[in-house]
């Protein structure tokens, strides 16, 4: 562990050597292995780490919500001068909500769907016997106003599903703030949100900080953290690898893992560079790269798609989208949820029929022809989804999935077996993964299998629909690197869909920005994302929290063979 930052003033929270384990004492799994930190009022501590690092458990310890089978030990666990180590359930309840507010990731899950939003906030007040009914009602409106919810009187009477994602998350923040807690714990508060909404929520959290509450922010997103945190702890495998003031950590990261984590973030600067410290090692085998050709591999003109909603009203989800994708090129489509990106992908794949416009694949008509005529040519265009698990038949092993993708090719049965091995090698998996079921693989490995399946029929185009959105940043880096390698080796084209501007900028040669079904801006990715002209793109780019990168202009040298890195991102 590195030096501890010295805080001035009285600490609100003091944690020393915190250890949390799960399971029965004999076969305990230790999830948090002795972390120490402190926090002063009005300051924000961010705990950064990937899934399974123990960051959420650490935060939950502070509200006594680690669960029944957990064992919490600490040399010191003090909040506002009070020892938290041996509290009863009842004592914890008096702290939760009143002294410590807790904001969870997904407001749609953590808010009661059948309860009006106002009632939800009122509940927090009522539980702690705050004021009378009339005063509480006023306070609810006041709180909603405080977190920037427009028309608070109306919203208070609505139920969570009637609100947009951003409003819901703000309602959740309002209920966490109801009793003016001294400490607010925010566990991935913006993870499920669009970038513009994320910006609003971050503004709210900043406001909380300004009013003197301390914040513990749990996040995997370094950019979000760099905007809000005063101190950052990088957590890995239950330990703080690095614990330093924010500015220091981002400008001079000490630990290799921190450096790899920062280097793994895709952005404008990372274009053309590798994001992960892994090296490419494989043979192409019997696969031959596509030859260059001048005809666009995929071309769309004036695509329109309408859906009939449950209320009987027709909505235009995709409205006049045109694009053209050349051999070996990556075209990025970026936009917020509901902008029509995925529908555009389905139209490009001819999995949905357009209500207007057309698509051509390798110069030949692709829409407006019967499925029978398309079937043989489907091998030229493949798809990789966000959630690979649902795209595999749950009964099938990896081998079955890959063999299935080879059906219809000219390979003989024995050649197909060889080819499965080649495909696994191509995406960096081993032969031992053949007989596993996707359920038994990690998220990154699953996405590799999905990519291998897409490569099976040797397509010219792969449509990638949010292929890395569900992955941790270091795994995301590996998958993005893999896609880049495959493109340079095989000359495959990508139609790459993402909500993440950094990812889009990293991978794309050209970018389409979509909003409400329309393409609002298109051009080279630098033009669109560095010099946006359309107000929507400008708003999108401005909402993105910028990460202060290490001051050295070139990327930090990453020791290739360092074992700690291997463990960290492997």
């Amino acid at each position, binding site marked *: 562990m590195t030096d501890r930052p010295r805080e001035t003033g009285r600490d609100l929270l003091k944690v020393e050597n915190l250890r949390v384990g799960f*399971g029965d004492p*004999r*076969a305990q*799994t230790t999830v948090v292995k002795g972390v120490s930190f402190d926090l002063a009022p009005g300051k924000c501590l961010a705990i950064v780490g990937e899934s399974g690092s123990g960051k959420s458990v650490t935060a939950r310890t502070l509200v006594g919500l680690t669960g029944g089978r957990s064992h919490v030990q600490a040399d010191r666990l003090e909040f506002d001068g009070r020892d938290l180590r041996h509290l009863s359930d009842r004592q914890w309840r008096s702290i939760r909500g009143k002294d410590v507010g807790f904001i969870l990731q997904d407001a749609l899950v953590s808010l009661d769907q059948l309860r009006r939003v106002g009632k939800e906030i009122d509940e927090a007040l009522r539980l702690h016997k705050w004021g009378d009914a009339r005063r509480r009602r006023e306070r609810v409106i006041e709180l909603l106003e405080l977190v920037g919810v427009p028309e608070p009187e109306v919203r208070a009477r609505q139920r969570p599903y009637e609100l947009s994602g951003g409003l819901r998350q703000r309602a959740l923040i309002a209920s966490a703030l109801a009793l003016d807690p001294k400490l607010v714990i925010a566990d991935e508060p913006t993870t499920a949100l669009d970038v513009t909404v994320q910006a609003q929520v971050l503004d709210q959290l900043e406001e909380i900080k300004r009013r003197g509450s301390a914040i513990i922010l749990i996040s995997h997103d370094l950019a979000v953290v760099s905007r809000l945190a005063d101190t950052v702890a990088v957590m890995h495998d239950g330990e703080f690898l690095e614990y330093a003031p924010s500015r220091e950590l981002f400008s001079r990261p000490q630990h290799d893992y921190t450096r790899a984590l920062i280097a793994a973030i895709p952005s404008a600067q990372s274009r053309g560079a590798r994001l992960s410290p892994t090296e490419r090692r494989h043979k192409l085998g019997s696969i031959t790269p596509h030859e260059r050709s001048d005809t666009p591999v995929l071309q769309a003109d004036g695509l329109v798609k309408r859906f009939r909603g449950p209320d009987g009203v027709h909505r235009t989800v995709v409205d006049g989208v045109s694009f053209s994708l050349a051999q070996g090129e990556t075209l990025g489509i970026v936009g917020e949820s509901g902008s029509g990106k995925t529908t555009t992908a389905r139209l490009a*794949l001819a*999995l949905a029929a357009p209500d207007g416009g057309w698509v051509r694949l390798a110069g030949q008509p692709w829409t407006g022809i019967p499925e029978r005529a*398309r*079937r*043989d*040519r*489907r*091998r030229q*265009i*493949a*798809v990789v*989804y966000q*959630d690979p698990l*649902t*795209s*595999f*038949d*749950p*009964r099938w092993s990896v081998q079955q999935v890959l063999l*299935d*993708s080879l*059906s*219809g090719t000219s390979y003989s049965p024995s050649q197909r077996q060889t080819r499965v091995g080649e495909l696994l090698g191509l995406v960096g998996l081993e032969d031992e993964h053949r007989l596993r*079921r996707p*359920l*038994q693989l990690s998220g990154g490995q699953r996405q590799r299998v999905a990519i291998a*399946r897409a490569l*099976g*029929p040797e397509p010219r185009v792969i449509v990638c629909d949010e292929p890395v959105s569900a992955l941790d940043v270091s795994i995301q880096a590996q998958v993005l690197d893999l896609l880049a390698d495959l493109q340079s080796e095989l000359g495959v084209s990508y139609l790459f869909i993402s909500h993440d501007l950094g990812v889009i900028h990293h991978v794309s040669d050209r970018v389409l920005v979509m909003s409400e079904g329309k393409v609002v801006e298109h051009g080279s990715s630098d033009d669109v994302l560095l010099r946006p002209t359309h107000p929507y793109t400008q708003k999108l780019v401005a909402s993105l929290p910028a990460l202060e990168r290490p001051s050295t202009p070139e990327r930090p040298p990453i020791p290739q063979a360092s074992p700690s890195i291997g463990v960290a991102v492997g």
Partner: protein
Amino acid sequence: MSAISQHPSGLAPVSTLAVPTWVRRLRPGVILATLVIAFFVLAVIVPSLLATNNPLSINLSATLQAPSWSHIFGTDASGRDLYSRVIYGARQSLLIGLGATGIAVGIAIVLGFASGLAGGIVDGVINRFVEVLFAFPVLLLALLFVAVFGPSAKTEIIAVGLGTAPGYTRMIRGQVLAVKDSGYVESARALGHSYRRIVRRHIFPNAMRPLVVIVTLGVGQSIVWASGLAFLGLGVPPPAPEWGALLDAGRDFVTQASWLEIMPGVAIVVFALSLTTVGRYIQQRLEGGITR
């Protein structure tokens, strides 16, 4: 989490070398359930091997005797050995249970897949038909059948089969719809597979998956239904020792000789429970030990 637990105290672990993995993975409950099923299957095939008495021989000097070593389930009002009657009744009851479930599932697969895959008008028509069937209580349907065809095992099988078919149909239709919308079906379409291949390789097996457990449950349920019919005197005519008929016969003596109700009842419950346990185990094994 690792499945291997540590050995408490100083007990030396028994050598596992001789025991194959699949045996070690069996759970005691599953073993017990399998034994129970094997016992009843034996009772179906060669009841004379397990029975202690002739199920039909009347002994008026030993009527309504409580369970004892000579009559482990006791005797009925005619002095017949109840245990032997339960053993001999297994054939009828199992036949009814399997037959009725078979008919129900058969109908359900045809209707469920037709309605789920075709959609539109076909779906609408089948749905209305199923709803009409649903509106008829199984008992009423059975009454109708018995009234028309007379009480017999065959009538009972058809009546219970028809009565329980709508439930299975609904379930299969729902499964088909869910699987049809799944990511892997879309992936298969994107790979260019034909509709027939997708139905055969993805939709059919995945939609049928939950059926394994439901069917084992259903066999037990059908036996219970048939017993219910027999209890009302609408089942297999006496003196055949069908389980439901045994329950029916014991009804008049429930206060003096409760074992006449309890023993056949326990047989039905234990058998149905064992089927379910084994069914669930099979399903878990089919899915690679992972329940989803």
